[in-house]
């Protein structure tokens, strides 16, 4: 196995991780404010459809005179609008009408599936509407020439860069700004926030809608950076994987990126496995190795920022990191015998890991304390 291949996989993993990361950040915005969001899937679906429709309609209306980039950007904005509106519905149902947040999330999912399928069947497919294309890959000069890291991070379509920027921005905003402080207070102890004059419900409304915008970006990615057209139910459960990534990432955007990357990696490996480039065991070793290394990195990072009450000793982190690196090395340089492991089982990874995290086997998954309860002023 050579470095080009390895780098290629890592780069592909980032691409696959992008919609999941957007979805996880969307869930993050809602849940940090105290509102459960199992409707990320529906919001992404709406975003995908609106991205397609928005870009196509804009192109039609301007008679094809505008550059492709403009239509794509309009598509992006349309995606954010569509997903944002449906997120607002979730907010109204669960905050104003105090409907159980899981039921209102289900409503959103049902409506999104119904509306997008309906529109596809009634309008998109019969007319054979073609898309405007996809965002071009933008290779960042100089940075992309850095050996090894360059091609992985700096040779992508713009939405990937946007995602990375959002991750950093959200992490900063959540923990270093007044907005983030108040948001977290509202999700942890809304009454305390109320007693210092913060409007709990208004904050929740705004954050849930912003979460919708992010999910919309995730959905838009599927259309505007991959296949260029809208297919029914094209999110295929990514919204729920995003939920898993959010939980595994302990409700931080950096953690979400790390988890999303892991899931993206398993997807990328799955693709290469089918091409016969990689051996199953090798892929598994690589996956676990990278997973461990990433885990160590995230824990070390969290420890450095002194967030979270994980009292894991530094020694344990070090051991995990070394084990991870060792496995990676093994994966790359040993000749693995071919073994019959069904490819599909690689796809089980996100779901199994989430269950393990929820059951408390991989660190404690503590959501914001006031989540799920509608807030009533005394």
């Amino acid at each position, binding site marked *: 196995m050579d470095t080009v291949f390895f780098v290629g996989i890592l780069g592909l993993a980032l691409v696959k991780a992008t919609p999941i990361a957007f979805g996880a950040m969307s869930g993050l915005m809602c849940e940090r404010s105290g509102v459960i969001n199992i409707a990320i899937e529906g919001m992404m679906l709406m975003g995908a459809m609106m991205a397609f429709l928005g870009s196509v309609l804009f192109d039609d209306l301007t008679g094809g005179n505008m550059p492709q980039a403009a239509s794509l950007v309009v598509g992006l904005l349309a995606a954010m609008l569509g997903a944002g509106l449906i997120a607002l519905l979730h907010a109204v149902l669960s905050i104003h009408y105090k409907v159980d947040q899981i039921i209102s999330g289900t409503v959103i999912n049902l409506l999104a599936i119904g509306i997008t399928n309906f529109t596809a069947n009634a309008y998109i497919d019969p007319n054979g509407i073609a898309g405007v294309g996809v965002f071009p890959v933008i290779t960042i000069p100089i940075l992309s020439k850095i050996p090894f890291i360059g091609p992985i991070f700096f040779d992508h379509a713009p939405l990937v860069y946007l995602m990375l920027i959002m991750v950093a921005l959200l992490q900063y905003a959540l923990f270093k700004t*007044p907005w983030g*402080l*108040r948001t977290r207070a509202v999700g*942890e*102890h809304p009454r305390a926030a109320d007693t*210092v004059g*913060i409007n709990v419900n208004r904050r929740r409304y705004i954050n849930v809608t912003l979460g919708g915008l992010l999910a919309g970006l995730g959905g838009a990615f599927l259309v505007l950076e991959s296949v260029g057209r809208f297919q029914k139910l094209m999110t295929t459960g990514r919204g729920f994987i995003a939920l898993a990534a959010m939980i595994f990432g302990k409700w931080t955007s950096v953690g979400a990126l790390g988890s999303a990357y892991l899931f993206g990696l398993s997807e990328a490996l799955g693709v290469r496995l089918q091409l016969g480039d990689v051996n199953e065991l090798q892929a598994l070793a690589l996956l676990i190795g990278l997973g461990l290394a990433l885990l160590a990195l995230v824990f070390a990072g969290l420890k450095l920022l002194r967030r979270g009450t994980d009292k894991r000793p530094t020694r344990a982190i070090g051991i995990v990191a070394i084990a991870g690196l060792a496995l990676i090395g093994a994966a790359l340089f040993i000749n693995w015998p071919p073994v019959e492991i069904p490819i599909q089982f690689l796809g089980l990874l996100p779901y199994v890991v989430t269950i393990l995290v929820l059951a408390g086997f991989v660190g404690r998954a503590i959501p914001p304390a006031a989540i799920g309860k509608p807030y009533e002023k*005394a």
Partner: protein
Amino acid sequence: MSDPVLRLAGVSKRFPGVLANDNVDFELAKGEIHALLGENGAGKTTLMNVVYGLYKHDEGQIFINGQEVEIHDPNDALAQGIGMVHQHFMLVPVMTVAENLMLGHETTRGPRLGSLSDLDDKKVAEDVKELGEVHGLAVNPGALVQDLSVGAQQRVEIVKALYRGADVLILDEPTAVLTPQEAEELFRVMHSLIAEGKSIIFITHKLKEVLEIADRITVLRDGKVAGTTTPSETSESELAAMMVGRDVILQVEKKPAHPGEPVMKIQDLQVRDQREQMVVRGVSLEVRAGEILGVAGVQGNGQRQLVEAITGLAHVEDGHVFVDGKEITNLKPRAITETGIAHVPEDRHKHGLVLAYPLDENLMLQTYYMPPFSKRTFIQPKAVKENAERLIKEYDVRTPSITTHAGSLSGGNQQKVIVARELSRDIRLLIANQPTRGLDVGSIEYIHRRIVEKRDEGVGVLLVSSELDEILGLADRIAVMFAGEILAVMPASEATKERLGLLMAGVQETPAAD
């Protein structure tokens, strides 16, 4: 004479069904510690919540330094220089001290980006250290609140108020959660704050403290001001009398008791609460057949945990409980019930009833698995119905039908349902915890009568209540619980309101000839 820092004139606050504050006049002079004294439910916290902007008063006016003000929310209060430390802390556990202090009023540095500016925790940390030095309130700005001791958290709450520029500090039952040493620390801090020119309102029900620390004392009773005085002009017994009043005791027709053998023996019981604090500290009691043992005390002194421990809902750390000589310590609730114990719980909505269930199902909640209610896993609807009809008639429960949901009944009728269920079994011991709280007079009378009836049938009764009238009216023997301990046990004939009031407020009796 300058204007008082804070003055309340004719303030009233109404909630559905209750007048919590009734035409209250109150004054806080600059640089004084003014204690607000009263029993639970006297309206102290409500009054201060009005001042702090959490409630809006229905009548009356508030004056700050002579000027009338409108306080709509805590921000207004803080702007006026009023800060409050609540009984249940308003701190976010997973955030640092500095973050909690900043919340809602954040200090930022760098480019002004509105709510996306960079939080300046360094500056906050510096300010906090400074405040701490001036008042001896050492708090670590970087610590997570959930890692702090209760006393430290309280210090954070005080610093939070000071940080927002409060000149008037309202402390709501601050020593309720402190050890005696921490309480002394708090008093020292309070004096230091006064020296700085602050003024303090100190809400409490503990008499000793009040005499130790207050400059002036206002006593509230049933929402009205019972009197204002100073420590030098009053005594513990006088204050106790003002707190509990000289109301007529609800007379209950009662023949003298004929107590028999002990039904329940509690030995050196020790129980911890959720925060690992020891809340029952070595309680020993005996309840005999055919007598009512009343446990008096202000709520929050360990009574709830005591009852939970002996009914199997809480873990007993140390000590023993016996029923008819058999040990029941730490047995499961059902096993304990089957030894012949009936329990009317304190929280009728949480433990006593299933509000969503119809009455007939509630009436068999403890024994549904036994005949006659079920035979070999099948429920016998006829038996359930007959039981419900009988009990509803016998206990005079006012309801449209036996299948009405418990949630639609009045409080009094709900309690009657619980009493009916518990008393209709074949029992040796009845534990009644705050059995008439929040009920109308008619229901109270009825339930009292039933309890006495059971006692006359030879059942032992453990009555836990913070209503002194109830204890004095019903009990044959009275024990007083304070801070997790039993301070005294006496025959009812030797109990007076004043004597009990003092004990309930933590004033130990000097050993007298028994």
